[in-house]
C-alpha cells in the first residue's frame, strides 16, 4: 500500500492532468476540471446537489469526453436515479444500453446484517472492478459512500477499508467523485476528507431573507491553482451551472460602435451618436419618471436594427409591459412574434440573487441577444444586501461586456435628492448614467432628463424636458432664463410670450425694411430726374458747340474766298491760315 502511494506522489511533477467535468463554470474555476486519476470529495448538506453534480460529471464524461463511467449509488435505487436525472435531460437508460455508463445500486440494510469475525470490503472492490472493466470506465462516482458506516458494523474496519479503496481507485487510474453529507464539525460526517486529499468541493444551500441560494467552493485542489471564492450555482433543466464570473477580471474589449438609444434627441445628447455597444447603461429616477419607457425605446430601436433583445422584468408581466408601451406608441408585439424580443418576467423574491444571476446567464446564453434590459434593478435590494446586489451586477456587467452585449438597467430612486448617493454603490460599474427626475414648478410635475455621466463620449450637460407622448418619448429644451428653469405649462407660457415678443420685433424689422425700400425708391427717382435734366443740358450744350464750329468754318471759308478773289499769294496765306 505504501508503495503505491509513494509511486503516485512521484508522478506529481509531470504536471497535473485534468478531467473536464463539462459543467458550465466548474471547469473554469478548476482550470480544466477535476484531477485526473484521483478522487474528489464533494460534500454538502441534504439537497445541495451532490448527486446531480456527480451524475453530470459522469454523463458529460460519457457523452462529451468519451470517458465511460460507473455510478455506484448507496442511497437511491437505479430507477429513482434514472427518473431524477431525466428532468435534467439525461437519458441514463440509453447510456447504459450503449455501455457508456454502469449504474449499480448498493443496498445495505442494517437489520439484515450480523457480524461474526473479521470482514473486509473486497466484495465492493470486486463489484466495482467488474463494472469498471465491463465498459472500460474512466470515471467513477460513489454516492454516498458514508452510508456504509450506518449499514455495516465495526467502523474501524470500514475506515481501513476506505483508505484501501481510495488507493485502489488511484491505482486503477479512474477519476472518482465521492460524495459526503456535511458533518457538524468536519466537512463530512465520517471525516472522509482525511482520506481524499486531492480535491475537495463543498456545496452549500443557504437561505437568507427567505430566499435560497446555492454556492460552490473548491476548498482544496492539491497541485493546482483554483478559484477559492464561493461561486453561486444553479440546477435547472440544463443541469448544473456554476458562475465563476468574478474570476474573469477586467479584460473585456471596448467597442467603438455606437448604437442609438431609440430617441434622436437623446442620441444627440450622447455625443450625437448614442450609447457604445457593449456598455452598461443605468437609468435611475423616482417613481413614474419614465424609466421603463426609455428602456422600451431602446429595445424597440435594437429590434429595428434586427438585433435580439431580452427584457427582464421584475415588476410587470409581459402583457402589462406590452399594453403600457403601446399606450405611448411603442408596439413591441411584432418583435416578440419575429423572435427578436423576449420578455422574461420573474418576481425578485422567487429566488436568491445568485439564482437570478445564473438564470439570466442561461437565458442570455441560449438566446444570444445584443441587448439586455433589467427593469428595475433595485427590486433586488431588500434590507441591506446592496453589496450583494452590487456584486451581482458587477458579475452580470462583466459577463455582458465580454459578450459585447449592451446592458440597460433601470433603478428606482427613493427620492430625487438622494439619487446620487444611494446608487453610488452600483454606479462604478456603469458606463452611461441617465437621471430622470421630477421638476416641481407652477403646481405641476414635469420630467427632466440629464446625463450624469457617460464614459468615453462628449455628452451634453443640459437638462432636457422629457415628454411621454402618444408616439413615444420626446425631449425638449427646457427654458432657462432669469426666472430659472421652466418646464411644462410654465415653459409653454414662456415660449408663447417669447413668440409674441418675437412677432412684435419681427414686425418692427419689417417696417424698417419697408421704410428703407421707400427711401431707396425715392432716391432712385431723384437720380433719374437729375440724369434727365443733365441729358437735356448736354444736348443743348452740344448743339451750341456744333453751331460755333460751323460758324468758325464758315468764317474761314469766307476769308479764303476773299483771298482768291483778291489774287493773294497762295502760300503765305496758307501759312497764316495754319497759324491761326
Amino acid at each position: 500500500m505504501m508503495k503505491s502511494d509513494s509511486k503516485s506522489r512521484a508522478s506529481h511533477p509531470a504536471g497535473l492532468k485534468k478531467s473536464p467535468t463539462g459543467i458550465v463554470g466548474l471547469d473554469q474555476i478548476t482550470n480544466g476540471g477535476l484531477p485526473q486519476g484521483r478522487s474528489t470529495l464533494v460534500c454538502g448538506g441534504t439537497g445541495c446537489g451532490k448527486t446531480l453534480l456527480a451524475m453530470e460529471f459522469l454523463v458529460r464524461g460519457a457523452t462529451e469526453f468519451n470517458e465511460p463511467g460507473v455510478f455506484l449509488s448507496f442511497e437511491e435505487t437505479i430507477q429513482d436515479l434514472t427518473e431524477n436525472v431525466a428532468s435534467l435531460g439525461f437519458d441514463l437508460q440509453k447510456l447504459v444500453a450503449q455501455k457508456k455508463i454502469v449504474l449499480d445500486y448498493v443496498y445495505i440494510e442494517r437489520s439484515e446484517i450480523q457480524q461474526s469475525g473479521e470482514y473486509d470490503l473486497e466484495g465492493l472492490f470486486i463489484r466495482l472492478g467488474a463494472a469498471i472493466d465491463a465498459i472500460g470506465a474512466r470515471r467513477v462516482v460513489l454516492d454516498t459512500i458514508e452510508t456504509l458506516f450506518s449499514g455495516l458494523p465495526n467502523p474501524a474496519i470500514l475506515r481501513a477499508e476506505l483508505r484501501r479503496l481510495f488507493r485502489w481507485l488511484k491505482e486503477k487510474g479512474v477519476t472518482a467523485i465521492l460524495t459526503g453529507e456535511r458533518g457538524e464539525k468536519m466537512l463530512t460526517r465520517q471525516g472522509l476528507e482525511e482520506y481524499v486529499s486531492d480535491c475537495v468541493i463543498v456545496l452549500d444551500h443557504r437561505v437568507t431573507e427567505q430566499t435560497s441560494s446555492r454556492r460552490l467552493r473548491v476548498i482544496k485542489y492539491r497541485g493546482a491553482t483554483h478559484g477559492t471564492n464561493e461561486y453561486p450555482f444553479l440546477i435547472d433543466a440544463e443541469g448544473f451551472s456554476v458562475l465563476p464570473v468574478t474570476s474573469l477580471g477586467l479584460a473585456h474589449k471596448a467597442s467603438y460602435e455606437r448604437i442609438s438609444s431609440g430617441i434622436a434627441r437623446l442620441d444627440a445628447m450622447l455625443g450625437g451618436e448614442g450609447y457604445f455597444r457593449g456598455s452598461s447603461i443605468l437609468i435611475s429616477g423616482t417613481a413614474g419618471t419614465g424609466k421603463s419607457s426609455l428602456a422600451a425605446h431602446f429595445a424597440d430601436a435594437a429590434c429595428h436594427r434586427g438585433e435580439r433583445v431580452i427584457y427582464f422584468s421584475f415588476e410587470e408581466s409581459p402583457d402589462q409591459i406590452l399594453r403600457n408601451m403601446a399606450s405611448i406608441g411603442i408596439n413591441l408585439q411584432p418583435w416578440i412574434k419575429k423572435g427578436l424580443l423576449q420578455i422574461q418576467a420573474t418576481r425578485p423574491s422567487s429566488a436568491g440573487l445568485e439564482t437570478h444571476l445564473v438564470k439570466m446567464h442561461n437565458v442570455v446564453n441560449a438566446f444570444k441577444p445584443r441587448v439586455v434590459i433589467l427593469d428595475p434593478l433595485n427590486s433586488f435590494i431588500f434590507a441591506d444586501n446592496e453589496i450583494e446586489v452590487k456584486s451581482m451586477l458587477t458579475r452580470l456587467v462583466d459577463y455582458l461586456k465580454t459578450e459585447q452585449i449592451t446592458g440597460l438597467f433601470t433603478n428606482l430612486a427613493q427620492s430625487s435628492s438622494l439619487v446620487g448617493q444611494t446608487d453610488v454603490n452600483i454606479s462604478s460599474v456603469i458606463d452611461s448614467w441617465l437621471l430622470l427626475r421630477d421638476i416641481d414648478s407652477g403646481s405641476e410635475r414635469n420630467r427632466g432628463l440629464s446625463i450624469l455621466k457617460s464614459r468615453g463620449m462628449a455628452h451634453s450637460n443640459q437638462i432636457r424636458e422629457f415628454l411621454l407622448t402618444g408616439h413615444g418619448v420626446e425631449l425638449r429644451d427646457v427654458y432657462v432664463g432669469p426666472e430659472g428653469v421652466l418646464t411644462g405649462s410654465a415653459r409653454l407660457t414662456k415660449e408663447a410670450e417669447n413668440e409674441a415678443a418675437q412677432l412684435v420685433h419681427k414686425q418692427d424689422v419689417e417696417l424698417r425694411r419697408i421704410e428703407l425700400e421707400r427711401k431707396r425708391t425715392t432716391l432712385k427717382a431723384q437720380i433719374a430726374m437729375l440724369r434727365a435734366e443733365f441729358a437735356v443740358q448736354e444736348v443743348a450744350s452740344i448743339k451750341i458747340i456744333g453751331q460755333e464750329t460751323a460758324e468758325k468754318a464758315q468764317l474761314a471759308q469766307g476769308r479764303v474766298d476773299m483771298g482768291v478773289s483778291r489774287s493773294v499769294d497762295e502760300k503765305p496765306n496758307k501759312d497764316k491760315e495754319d497759324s491761326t
Partner: protein
Amino acid sequence: MKSKPSSTEKQTPAPAALEHFVLKLYIAGQSPKSLNAIANIKKICEENLQGRYELKVIDLYEQPQLAQGDQIIALPTLIKKIPPPLRRIIGDLSDTERVLVGLDIQQA
C-alpha cells in the same frame, strides 16, 4: 457456548429447528478470511443443521457478476434466504454464537 439449540428453551426456534436451510457463502479466493469462513460454516452446519442444509460457496473472483445480484459488499458474506427472513452474516464466521443467532437457529 457451542451448545446445541434446544427446542425446550424457547418457543420460537422450535419450528426453525426442523426447517431446511439454504445457505450461500461468498468468499474472495484463498484469503485467510475466506478459508476460515468456509471451515467455520461447515463446522457450524454439521453441528447444528446436519442433514437439512445446502451450502454453496461462491468465489467472487471467479464470478464477480454475482456480487450485484446478492448485494455483496463485505466479504466473506453468508446469506440465508431460506427459511425467511433473509439474513446476512459478514465476517469469517469465527463467532459461532453470532452465526447461530444470525441464522435464527438460536435466540440472542
